[in-house]
């Protein structure tokens, strides 16, 4: 009997310890994420994405919390040694229970699906954020292991730095001059892949000024960890000054300079170019469509044709 008692004691102790550890971990984690980029967004896209996250977690608690309670209560109360508990060894079917366990998750899924459709359309990275505003056009080119951002309207280009005026939508068209990459600025919104020979799009907007990190998150080789950049969300005046600074750089991004830049390199410092080879972005897409007459550079497979 002593042995048995010791065993049940250990079970209690271990379970309590486990719950305590889990709670502590949740607490620590909970505090830490509050100022992380996902839960503390700086733009409307990321904010809506976060709110959807909160809503979905909340609705699913309808299922999760009963599971936790049942798991704890049932394992405690219906332990074999508790002879007071009712024991019905042949209880294996009960219509009301079946209806509940199928219908409640199904109802939650219906709720989720409605929100999913609405938000997937609303937050489609290809959709312009505010049709009434003219977005800043940026062309992003993934290279090993850096990002080149071309501002065709301003005839400038910059390596590893993305500047944008606060409150103005930015429309980024994306391609890759190497393997598959994925462009993300967590504080502003979700990611989209960058693929050679194809063009993808990301529409973002920053509500606040500040510096937010962005990077490639699709593993792309040995320099992957270093493939990051700063996003500068600036006032209109600061942004204009930034454009002016780039224009003063005196370095032009012609074909030869581009070839040199595109070679694999890591930790490339922010570099400004003034005067970009016309049609550079399209040229990089089309250089991979050799032998593929079906694929038009502007309407590649990754481009939606809605």
């Amino acid at each position, binding site marked *: 009997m002593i042995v048995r008692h010791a065993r049940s004691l250990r079970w209690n102790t271990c379970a309590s310890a486990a719950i305590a550890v889990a709670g502590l971990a949740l607490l620590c984690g909970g505090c*830490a994420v509050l100022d992380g980029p996902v839960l503390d967004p700086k733009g409307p896209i990321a904010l809506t994405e976060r709110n959807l996250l909160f809503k979905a977690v909340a609705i699913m608690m309808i299922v999760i919390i009963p599971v936790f309670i049942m798991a704890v209560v049932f394992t405690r109360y219906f332990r074999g040694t508790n002879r007071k508990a009712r*024991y019905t*060894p042949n209880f294996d079917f009960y219509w009301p229970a079946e209806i509940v*366990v199928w219908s409640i998750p199904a109802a939650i899924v219906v709720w989720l699906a409605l929100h999913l*459709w609405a938000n997937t359309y609303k937050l489609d990275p290809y959709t312009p954020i505010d049709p009434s505003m003219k977005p800043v056009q940026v062309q992003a080119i993934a290279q090993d292991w850096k990002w080149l951002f071309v501002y065709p309207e301003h005839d400038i280009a910059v390596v590893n730095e993305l500047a944008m005026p606060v409150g103005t939508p930015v429309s980024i068209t994306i391609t890759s001059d190497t393997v598959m990459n994925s462009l993300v600025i967590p504080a502003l919104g979700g990611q989209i892949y960058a693929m050679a020979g194809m063009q*993808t799009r990301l529409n973002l907007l920053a509500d606040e000024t500040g510096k937010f990190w962005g990077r490639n998150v699709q593993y792309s*080789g040995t320099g992957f960890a270093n493939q*990051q950049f700063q996003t500068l969300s600036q006032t209109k005046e600061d942004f204009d000054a930034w454009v002016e600074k780039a224009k003063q750089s005196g370095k032009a991004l012609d074909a030869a300079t581009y070839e040199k830049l595109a070679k694999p390199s890591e930790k490339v410092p922010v570099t400004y170019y003034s005067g970009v080879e016309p049609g550079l972005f399209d040229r990089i897409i089309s250089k991979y469509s*050799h032998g593929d007459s079906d694929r038009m550079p502007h309407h590649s497979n990754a481009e939606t044709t*809605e």
Partner: protein
Amino acid sequence: MDIFGRLTLESLPFYSVIAASGAAVTVLGGLAVVGAITYFGAWRMVMTQWVSSVDHKKIGIMYIMLALVMLLRGFVDAAMMRSQQAIALNNEGYLPPDHFDQIFSSHGTIMIFFMAMPFLSGLANLIVPQQIGSRDVAFPFMNSVSLWLTTAGAGLMLISLVVGKFSTAGWTGYPPYSGVEYTPGVGVDYWLWMVFIAGFGTTMTGINFLVTIFKCRAPGMTMFRLPLFTWTMFITSVLIIFAFPALTVACGMLILDRNFGFHFFTNGMGGNMMNYINLFWLWGHPEVYILILPAFGVFSEVVSVFSQKRLFGYISLVCATIAIGLLSFTVWLHHFFTMGSSARVNSFFGTMTTIISVPTGVKVFDWLLTMYRGRIIFKPPMLFTIGFLVTFVIGGLSGVLLALPPIDYMMHNTTFLVAHFHNMIIPGVLFGYLAGYMYWFPKAFGFKLNERWGTISFWCWIIGFYIAFMPLYVLGLLGMPRRMEHYEIAAWQPHLIAAWVGAFIIMLGLIALAVQLVVSVRERKQALDLTGDPWNGRSLEWATSSPAAPYNFAVLPKVESREAWWDMKQRGVAYRRPEKYEDIVMPKNTYAGLVIGVAGGVFGFAAIWWMWWLAFSALAVIVGTIIYRASDDDDEFVMTASEVKAIEDARFAQLAKAPKNEMADEPGFAGEAAPEPAT
């Protein structure tokens, strides 16, 4: 030196101390096994009774041995990654990027293809024929070929540690990165060929079990009397048959790209990497369910037996299994919502994914309701089941979040995703397999595993899991991408250190598993399973002796109820001696399966290193062996009625000495199957 293809002395891992030590451990481990077999004079037994065996129970045991060895190897990779990330804030850590990238690639490859898959095949082999009251699987020889092809793949995995470098393209091998233009060398070829070869073995396992469950059931064992584990293996077999060809084709095309100048998935020349990604996940998502459904089956068996109660909602659980199986083919695109599909496409696949959570949720509730008004006995398999129930729903929650495309845009490629799928695969798949391992171990070896060490292992696993993976959820919300070999954001480090501590606790869990095995073998005399029914079980595998006779059932059982064995015990017809025995036709042991496996491994190695003469020779050996085997009419032998009688007499003599019910001493024991069940 054309004869060695592109294999040179530089392929040996003397360029790095860590790589060289990994190779040394692998080589010494191999030598230790050979030495041990020699020391114990066991070569004869190993050769005649094991590697040449076509007995599904022995094949099952060999599969599980392979899985446990690979689990260890995969864990070492995990520990190395956790250690690197714990220290690599603003510094390079101790692993250069090239090495770190090989480690995360091999970790995933090993855990999916050479830990989980063999574990699953092993449990199925061990149990399914016995659960359906069959003497064997439908194709015993093909079963042996499956085992040895899987082992050949695992062998290539281990060899890649010693000769050449492994892939750095991750376990998914996405092109164009995995193409020859960006990743020359043998690494990706190792990955491709091992997956390709092992994939053939798995496909054959799927075919074998589908046919076995369809055609080899005992009289009266209708589909809706099948135990849940068999049901899940049935659906898993269907999924294997439909899903694995997609992987084989994707790998085959990438092999052509890399080695023969094709352009299926290259950047230029008309290639398109998106086709690979679709094909890969067309296999990859059903694969998730291939892995987890049998684990669900184990949980269903365990929760019923250790709650000493009928399984709640059998029909619901079966329907849910079928629903998951069908839906698993409709969701693959959720692995790449961020590849630029339209909102319409993403919404469809997102919705299908959330729908899968319905049958899964139903299962969770049915297991909980099985415990309701039961008398729960907390044996290690049951602990793993309870741990699974609580932990799995957290993974389900994060899974549904990732199924919402807008959230996936945020969380894709972050450690949130890593935490999510580990949350499904460790508590879901691995806990299930470990529960199955501890639950069915007595059936395989005739003695029970030590409970104390099993319990310790469970607590280490579950506490370690929480500490290792909850921080990864947090890191995902902090934006940390997966596969970072160093980083510059200081806020990430505390969580990575916590994850490292968790990995350390999981290591204690692994050590406890090893200790459990050693202690159990040494103290087996105190834990013998004399009746063949150590847990007061309900399904037919407990009707055989432990370990079961080569033919499983001397007389095929007549099934009259869903809980066939429990029903027999209730009706008082269990352990009844038949009036007479009959001759039993058995398949003969053969080396042909081993030869095909070894030749398959040699073929893979030769193809990786471009030793084409050797590759073609190995291929010729495979074809020759198949022709030889196919034309060999002398592949069966008859076990005579008197031989059967001798074995069965010994079994009944043992039963006479055995306690009436091995669970009767349990404090929580609720009583045995009696004609009038107490309610």
